[in-house]
């Protein structure tokens, strides 16, 4: 019988994905709330600040995955806790990318 695999690497993948989508949501709202931020998020003018918002989200996701993957390698973690944190981050990410929510933070 094959050895059981520990939950750490799966937890790292799930939590990192949640962090990635939360960062996209956070930057979507911050882009409305903070004057001048869109200049820094505009990585490629034809597509505008969307490139930076999603680009930073993807980079943070991959770095978080690498960091958590290293930390949880070979370990078993409390998947219930990881799932709760992941769902909270995903829910916040969804809220922060919902136009009626992020438009509330838009400057005049």
């Amino acid at each position: 019988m094959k050895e059981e695999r520990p939950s750490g690497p799966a937890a790292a993948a799930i939590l990192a994905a949640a962090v990635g989508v939360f960062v996209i949501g956070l930057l979507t709202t911050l882009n409305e709330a903070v004057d001048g931020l869109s200049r820094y998020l505009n990585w490629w003018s034809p597509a505008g600040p969307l490139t930076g918002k999603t680009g930073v989200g993807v980079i943070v996701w991959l770095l978080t995955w690498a960091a958590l993957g290293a930390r949880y390698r070979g370990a078993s973690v409390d998947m219930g806790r990881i799932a709760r944190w992941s769902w909270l981050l995903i829910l916040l990410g969804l809220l922060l990318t919902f136009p009626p929510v992020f438009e509330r933070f838009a400057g005049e």
Partner: protein
Amino acid sequence: MQVSARELWTVLHGLIFGSVFLAAFAGGLAGLYSLRPELATVQGVQERIRRLTAGTWVMALIAWITVISGTYIVYPWYRARPPENADLTFFPRAYLLAKPSTAAWHTFGMEWKEHVGWFAPILATAVAFVVAYYGPQLAREDRVRRTTLWLFVVAFATAGVAGLFGAFLNKIAPIR
């Protein structure tokens, strides 16, 4: 019968890549839902996990192709600024914003779609990794399997929002 390069890319982005992701969802969902020891034999789980691993990786790849082609190829045509006195029907964003009756298609529909659509490939990649990592053991890890299943549902829902608004937007203000 002619199709411009812009129309072709719009079709590839939404109707081919996006639709394949959405259509494949049902198979993946059924696979994850039924991946339980009480519903399948050991051989059944092994056979199912091979299909599920390949299917979820292909879906993640297609989701990435969809958002990258959408953001870096189609979206610049959508948001291009028109020169003065230009025919706005060639500039979808400006065309929608020009009339109060259509502005919400951009301020709500496009603004939601362009951001939330990026959730799908990230979540789908996490799902594919977890399925591949655990293999048949996933059938015995009920909490992880249920979390993965719901991540898969959220990935589908976000792709669905993006796809639905994409279809409406391309009907109301097509990219030419």
